[in-house]
């Protein structure tokens, strides 16, 4: 249900299509509050954890749905649950240490105790001391459970939703997005490292960036300089879910720069022929999948990213913090059956990604470059016409179709 007490300041969209985005959407605090209600608490599936982060009964980890803190738990039967990390009594956080293993969820404040599915089990001194004091006789434990989300696990990805109207996860993802997830998460994985990154920008600026295949070889010159990923490589963009989800893919070693703007010296900042790696083992890779695709970035609306950059595999969860700040969580992984050589290559390629990633570090600041420049730009809009005006699959990554898709889905869901 939409809460109409949260009406955002009037934001004018100059076009009915997704080719214009008014800059106020990145700076309006009321719109931010409404997003939390309508999108993140609404009919979306939100990635909250990898199931291997909570492998055993009693395991839990803290996570987020939008900016709502949640707990992800595994009960004694092995079932995964997700609930708001807030005691039903007076609202204290139940877990505040990130992750661990526990018999039950006991609040530190007054010791109300919940099972791992979030059902209230007991209230300390419910019947007082020697029958003096205590809760009123009509107090019903069963009516004070934790606020639970629905959970579905797909190929080891745990998704949660607070809405009863969200369609089943497979349907939400659609056939193509589901099969790409299955392609990457095709066998047991092993977590190799985790970290996070503060982004001084509205969450939507990062999701735009993820879906923007146009910028890759232009902003990130490390890649293009070493011919690892250029827009002239074979590749494309798929958009699904009314634009909500996207997949950008390419195959390395399929291109020639002849006849493209890469040829014209000085035209693109990315062209630096005299720059060679002193140690090329940094980028040594092997073909991981039979389809020959070497790079794929997939986003599932609203805030989940699955990444394959050569052999560097990771999931990313973007958590909105406020209208102008977000935190990006990375989980870097390989497969449980990696050979030592594959492990070493992944380790070296880990230099390409994350906040210190030779390829990806610019994504940590580009959102802020926008955020700081648009905060007084009432009535002005971003332009999204690269690759046309439609939201549709593209044969080329020189396209903003994925970004248009995001805005089309966003507007439809936000009803603005």
């Amino acid at each position, binding site marked *: 249900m939409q809460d109409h007490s949260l009406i955002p300041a009037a934001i004018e969209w100059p076009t009915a299509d997704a080719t214009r985005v008014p800059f106020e959407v990145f700076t309006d605090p009321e719109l931010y509050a409404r997003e939390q209600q309508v999108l993140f608490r609404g009919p979306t599936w939100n990635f909250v954890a990898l199931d291997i982060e909570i492998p055993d009964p009693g395991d839990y980890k803290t996570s987020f749905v939008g900016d709502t803190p949640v707990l992800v738990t595994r009960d004694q039967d092995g079932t995964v649950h997700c609930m708001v990390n807030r005691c039903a009594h007076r609202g204290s956080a139940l877990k505040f240490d990130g992750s661990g293993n526990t018999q039950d969820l006991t609040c530190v404040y007054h010791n109300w105790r919940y099972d791992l599915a979030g059902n209230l089990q007991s209230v300390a001194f419910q019947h007082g001391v020697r029958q003096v004091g205590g809760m009123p006789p009509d107090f019903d434990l069963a009516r004070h459970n934790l606020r639970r989300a629905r959970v579905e696990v797909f190929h080891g990805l745990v998704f949660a939703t607070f809405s009863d109207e969200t369609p089943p996860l497979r349907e939400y993802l659609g056939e193509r997005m589901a099969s790409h997830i299955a392609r990457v998460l095709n066998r047991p994985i092993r977590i*190799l490292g985790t970290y996070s990154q*503060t982004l001084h920008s509205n969450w939507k600026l990062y999701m735009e960036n993820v879906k923007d295949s146009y910028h890759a070889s232009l902003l990130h010159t490390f890649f293009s300089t070493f011919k690892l990923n250029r827009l002239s490589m074979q590749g494309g963009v798929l958009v699904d879910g009314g634009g909500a989800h996207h997949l950008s893919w390419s195959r390395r070693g399929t291109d020639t720069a002849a006849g493209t703007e890469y040829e014209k010296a000085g035209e693109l900042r990315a062209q630096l022929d005299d*720059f060679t790696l002193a*140690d090329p083992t*940094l980028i040594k890779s092997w073909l991981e999948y039979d389809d020959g695709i070497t790079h794929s970035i997939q986003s599932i609306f609203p805030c989940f990213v699955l990444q394959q950059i050569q052999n560097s595999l990771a999931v990313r969860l973007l958590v909105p913090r406020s209208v102008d700040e977000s935190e990006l969580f990375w989980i870097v992984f390989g497969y449980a059956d990696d050979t030592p050589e594959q492990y070493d290559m992944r380790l070296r390629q880990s230099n390409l990604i994350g906040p210190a990633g*030779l390829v990806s*570090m610019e994504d*940590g600041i580009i959102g802020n470059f926008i955020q700081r420049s648009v905060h007084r730009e009432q009535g002005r809009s971003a332009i999204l016409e690269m690759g046309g005006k439609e939201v549709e699959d593209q044969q080329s990554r020189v396209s903003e179709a994925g970004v248009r898709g995001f805005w089309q889905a966003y507007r439809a869901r936000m009803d603005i």
Partner: protein
Amino acid sequence: MNQALVNPELVNRVERLQADYVDCIDDERYADWPGFFLEECLYTIISRDNARRGLPFGFLWCENRRMLRDRIASMKNANIYEPHTYRHVLGRTSVRPAEAGGWRARTSYMLARVMHDGGMDLFSTGAYEDWIVEDEGTLRFREKRVVTDSGRIDALIVIPF
């Protein structure tokens, strides 16, 4: 830590090495930075949490001096970021002999990041966990593991520390 096994003069040299190392970075002499390492070396930045959980992958991983040079070359020629400099403050170094030769040294650091527009933040704190060896009369890092106390980085890391 058994400091008694290491003579004070050596401890002094190690602390001098640490001081010179951070001064090189804080003074923006980045081209000289790889020279503090052996040709075959390890330089990595990893969070304390990952280190404790035995997760091997951190923020960056360089396994020889050429990769260190590539980091600097990329920083100068390829990467986009706002100009900034660092200021390190180091704690005392504890030194003990390393089983495989040389010494193990552990030094706390605090690192401020100063942006070109004057903005200033405490960017990272942590410890250098180093393996130092004598290399033709000079102490160099065979290994430098920068273990950050926090697993969260503000925006990006481009300058090594």
